[in-house]
C-alpha cells in the first residue's frame, strides 16, 4: 500500500482466482505439518470448527487467500486451542490487492497457533515500509517502529525479556539500506529472533524507487535511465554477518514459507529468512522466474537437509566441479542422483557456494548446456551457537552468584567514605 496512493478499487474476490499465482490461494490451510505440533496444550489440528461467516463479513478488499480460512479450533485436551483467527487483529489490512504481503501474513497467522508459545508471548517488531505495517494486523504484542531500526529495538526487547518470542518484519530497503547496520549486528550477536525480510526489490511504500536489492539497470521512478547501483544479495549479507540461520522462501509457495518459518522459530539464535515477495504495483513479476509454474522447476532449487540437490522434477542436479557448482543432467545417462551434492545446512563452505548463486550467477559449463544455476530455497545454513541473551544472563547470573546479589546501601558506601558527626 503505497503512501497516499489510492488503491481502493474493489479488489478481486475469490472468483478471480485464476489470476492468482500457484500456491497463493487459501487452499493449503491444513498442512500436514500440523500433525507435528508439539504436544503442548494447544492442538490446532482438528475439524474446522469455526463458522464460515468470514467469507461474508470480511472486507472485500481482501484478496483471496487472505480471508479467514477455517483454522482448526478443535482441541484434544479440552483447552480451547487457538486458531489462525485468534491472531488476526481487528484492523483492516490495507496492502494493495494482490500484494504478496497477504500470503506472508496468512502463513504467519497459520503457523502461530501451531507453535509451543502462548499467544501473549509473541511480539512483532517492524520498521517502515509496506512490510512494516505487518504488526498492526497481528493480534499479538507488536511495535511498528521507525525505518530500519527494528533489529535494534528487538535486540533490547529480547535481551531483557528472553522468554518472549520476538519476530522482526522488515523490507529490503528497511533491512538492507537504512537499517543495514542493525541487521548485521543483530545477526552476528545471534539474538534469538526470527527476521522475516520481505524482499520485493523495490521501495513500495514510497511508491517505487529502486532498492538495494534492485538489479542494475532497473528502470524505476528514481532511475528512469536505469539504476547504476550494484544490488546486494541478502543471503550473502546474512552469511557474511555470521547469521546462525539463513533461509530463503517465496510468497507464492505458502507451504514452503510456513515450513521455513517454523524452522526459523525452532532455531535458537538469529534466524534470517529472505522472502521473495511480489509487489504487483511497482515491481510486478520480479521473481516470477522462480515462483511461477512454467519456470519454477528449472529455476528454483528446493534444499532439503540430507537430500541430494536435484531440481526440474528430478531431471537435473547440482554437483561440485572444482570449487564451483555445476548443473548436471540426470537423464542423459552420464550422471545419477548419487553424483549430486547432498545438502548439509551445517556446512559453511557449501552455504558460501549456494549463497553466491545470484543475478550474475555463472553459466554452467556442464552437460546441461548453458543453463544458469537454479536459485536455492530453503534453509541454506544453520549452526548452533550460544544466543546473545543467553550469554548476557549467564554472565549476570555468574557475577551475581560470585559477588552476591547487589545491596544498594553497600554500593553507595563502596570506596572511601568518611563520617561527619
Amino acid at each position, binding site marked *: 500500500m503505497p503512501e497516499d496512493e489510492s488503491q481502493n478499487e474493489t479488489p478481486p474476490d475469490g472468483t478471480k482466482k485464476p489470476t492468482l499465482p500457484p500456491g497463493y490461494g487459501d487452499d493449503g490451510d491444513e498442512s500436514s505439518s500440523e500433525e507435528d505440533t508439539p504436544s503442548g496444550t494447544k492442538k490446532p489440528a482438528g475439524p474446522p470448527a469455526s463458522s464460515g461467516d468470514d467469507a461474508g463479513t470480511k472486507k472485500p478488499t481482501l484478496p483471496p487467500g487472505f480471508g479467514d480460512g477455517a483454522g482448526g479450533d478443535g482441541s484434544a485436551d479440552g483447552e480451547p486451542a487457538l486458531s489462525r483467527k485468534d491472531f488476526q*487483529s*481487528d*484492523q483492516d489490512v490495507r496492502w494493495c490487492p494482490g500484494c504478496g504481503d497477504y500470503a506472508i501474513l496468512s502463513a504467519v497467522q497459520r503457523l502461530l497457533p501451531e507453535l509451543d508459545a*502462548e*499467544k*501473549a*508471548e509473541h*511480539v512483532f*517488531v517492524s520498521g*517502515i515500509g509496506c512490510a512494516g505495517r505487518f*504488526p*498492526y494486523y*497481528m*493480534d*499479538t*504484542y*507488536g*511495535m*511498528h*517502529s*521507525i525505518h530500519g*531500526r527494528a*533489529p*535494534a*529495538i*528487538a*535486540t*533490547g*526487547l*529480547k*535481551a*531483557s*525479556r528472553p*522468554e*518472549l518470542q520476538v519476530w522482526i518484519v522488515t523490507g529490503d530497503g528497511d533491512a538492507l539500506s537504512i537499517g543495514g*547496520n*542493525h541487521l548485521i*549486528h543483530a545477526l552476528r550477536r545471534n539474538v534469538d529472533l526470527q527476521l522475516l525480510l520481505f524482499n520485493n526489490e523495490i521501495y513500495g511504500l514510497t511508491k517505487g524507487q529502486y532498492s538495494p536489492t534492485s538489479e542494475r539497470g532497473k528502470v524505476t521512478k528514481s532511475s528512469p535511465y536505469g539504476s547504476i547501483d550494484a544490488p546486494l544479495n541478502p543471503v550473502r549479507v546474512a552469511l557474511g554477518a555470521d547469521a546462525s540461520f539463513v533461509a530463503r522462501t517465496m510468497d507464492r509457495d505458502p507451504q514452503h514459507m510456513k515450513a521455513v518459518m517454523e524452522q526459523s522459530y525452532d532455531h535458537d539464535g538469529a534466524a534470517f529468512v529472505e522472502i521473495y515477495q511480489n509487489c504487483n504495483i511497482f515491481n510486478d513479476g520480479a521473481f516470477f522466474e522462480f515462483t511461477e509454474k512454467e519456470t519454477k522447476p528449472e529455476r528454483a532449487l528446493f534444499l532439503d537437509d540430507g537430500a541430494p540437490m536435484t531440481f526440474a522434477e528430478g531431471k537435473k542436479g547440482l554437483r561440485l566441479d572444482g570449487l564451483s557448482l555445476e548443473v548436471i543432467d540426470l537423464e542423459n545417462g552420464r550422471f545419477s542422483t548419487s553424483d549430486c551434492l547432498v545438502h548439509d545446512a551445517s556446512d559453511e563452505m557449501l552455504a558460501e557456494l549456494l549463497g553466491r548463486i545470484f543475478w550474475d550467477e555463472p553459466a554452467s559449463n556442464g552437460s546441461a548446456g548453458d543453463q544458469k544455476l537454479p536459485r536455492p530455497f530453503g534453509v541454506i545454513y544453520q549452526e548452533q551457537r550460544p544466543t546473545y541473551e543467553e550469554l*548476557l544472563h549467564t*554472565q*549476570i547470573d555468574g*557475577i*551475581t552468584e*560470585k*559477588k*552476591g*546479589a*547487589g545491596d*544498594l*546501601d553497600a*554500593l*553507595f*558506601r563502596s*570506596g*572511601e*567514605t*568518611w*563520617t*561527619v*558527626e
Partner: protein
Amino acid sequence: MNQTDAEVPSANGQTDTEALPEATVLFAGDSGDGMQLTGSQFTLATAHAQSDLSTLPDYPAEIRAPAGTTYGISGFQVHFGSGNVRTPGDSVDLLVAMNPAAVKVHLGRVERGGTVVVNTNAFNDRGFKLADLDANPLDDGTLDDYRVVEVELSKLTREALSDTDLSTKEVDRSKNMFALGLALWLFSRPMAPALEWIGKKFEDKPALRDANRHVLKKGYHYGETTEQFVTRYDVAPADLEEGTYRAVRGAEALALGLVAASEKSGLGLFYGSYPITPASDILHELSRHKNFGVMTFQAEDEIAAAGSALGASFGGQLGVCATSGPGLALKTETIGLATMTELPMVILDVQRGGPSTGLPTKTEQGDLFQAIYGRNGDAPLPVVAPDGPADCFRAAYDACRLACTYMTPVILLADVYLANGSEPWRIPDAADLPPFEVNFATEPNANGDPESTHVNGKKNGEASFLPYRRDEETLARPWAKPGTEGLEHRVGGLEKEAETGDVSYDPANHQHMTDVRAEKIQCVARDLDPPAVYSAGTGADEGDLLITAWGSTRGAVETAVDRLQGRGTLWPLPPGLEAIFDRFEHHLVPEQNNGQLARLLRDEFLLDFRPYGKVQGQPFTPGEIVEKAEAMIS
C-alpha cells in the same frame, strides 16, 4: 587564597602553619604524567580532612599527545574550603607544574602572589622548545609575581628509588607521587588515604607498591626538611551536614542513581550505549554492577543504543541510554518514537563543546535546545538538569521516576564538568529514597465500546484493553508488558487514535493527541516546587537584578551572589517563575552556550532576559558573573 590572621606555629617549629578558609590547587603536566590520578588522590585526602570541595579535571582529547607540548597538558584542579564550596575555584593558589608547557598553559589561572612548584628537571632547552617558548620562564620575568618553588622532582625521585630494581621508566613514572606528597604536606592533608590506595592498586606488584609509597613519603618529608617553604597551610574541616560521605564524580553518581532507580522500582535496568567521551564513564561504571541485574549493551551506534533501550522499555524494563551531543542527534528519531508510543525511556546527555565533534573533552551547555525542541513534529518531553556532581544521583533517579510515572522519554542534561567533577556526597539510605512504584496493567481496562460494535476486536460488553486510555491525573497511558495475557496491543510511530491506540489519520484526533501529549508533559510541573530565590541568606526576594541559570552553572552563580551581596526539573519550567521574575528589574542569564535559556525565557515570559554566554570549554567562575552583574546594575 584568602588569607586570615590566624597563624598557627607548626609542629616542627620551622615552618609556620597558616589557617585558610579555602584554597585551590592545580596539578598540571603531560597526559602521561599521571596528573588525573594525583589530583584525585589529593581530593581523597582533602575529603578525609573533611573539607567541602569541588574538582575540575581537564584533559586533552588526544590519548597520548606528544610529551611536553602545550596541547598535551592534562590538569586537575581541586578547590576546597571550610565553608560552602560550589565551584572548582576562580583562581589557583598552588600550581604544580611538571614541565614548561604546564606553566605556559595554566599560569593565567594562578592568583598573583600564588605558589608555583616546578619540576626543574623538565626545564631545559628541549622542554622550552616543545612548549614553544623562547626563553626559560623561570628567569625571563614570567614568574616574577609568583612565589616559585623549584624542585628537582625527577632527580629526587630517581635518588629515592636508586636501590630498587625498577626500570628508569617505572621510576620516572612515580614522580607524580613526589608531587602529591609535597602538596599534601603543604596543605596539611593526611597521607593515609593515598598510602592505602597505593596498597590496593599495586596489590600484586609489591615492588611498585613500595616504590610509590616510598616516593610519596619522600615528597611529604621533602616539604618538612627543605627550607624552601616559609609557610604551610591548613584548611579547617567544613561544617558539613551530619552523615556518611564519599567523594563522587558526576558520572558515577549518574550510574548510582540509575541502579537505585532499578532497585527501588523493581524494574530491570537495561542500558544501551555507544562509546562517546564523556558519557562512556557511565557505561564503564554500570557494567561493573551486573550483580544488580544491570544489563549493559554496547550497541553498534547511538540509534541502536536508543532503540534497544526503547525495546527494553516496551518489554517492561527501565530502558536507559547515555551519550553526548552528536549521539543525541542520532537518537532523535527514536526519542520521537518513544514520545509517540508513550513509553518510558531515559536519555542521559553529557554535554560537551559543539557543534559537530566540537570540543570532546570540554564542557558546554549547548544542547538545551536540542533536548527541549530537537525533534520533528511537536514532541514535548521533560528535561532534567543536575546542578552539581553529587546532584547527578538525584537527577538520574528522578528522571527514571518521571519517565515511568508519565510514560514518556526524559532527557537528562549533564555536562563534562558535572560528569568529571567530583564533590562530597552525603550518602542516602536506600530506604529513604523517594518511593518508586510501577504498576503494570494486568487487566483489561474497558468493556467494549458502546458506540461501535467492537473495540480492539472485542464486542460491546466484552472486556478489552485500551492501550491509550489515560490516567486522569498524570494523563499517562497504561504500561502493559508483552507476555501479559489478554492485553495484546500494538504501538508504533503512526498517529494513534485516542483510547484504542489504533492507527488514525483523523485530523481532529491528531489535534487532540498533540494537545494531550503537550498537556501530559505540563502535568510534570505540578509536582515541582516553585524555585527558591537564592539571596545569600539575606532573605531578599525582589530587587534590581535576578540571575537565572540552569544546570552546572548554579555553583558559580550562587558563589557570585554570596560575594555580591533558583533547582529541579528544567522542562517543563517550574511553577511560580513569573511571579519571581516580576519582582526584579533586570535579568541576567549566564549559561555555557550562546543564550539558549535566555531565549527560551524571553519566549515564555516576554521579559528582557540578558544572555551571558560563555563557550570556552571551561565553566564560569563566580568572578566572571560578579563582573557582569555589577556592570548591569551600575
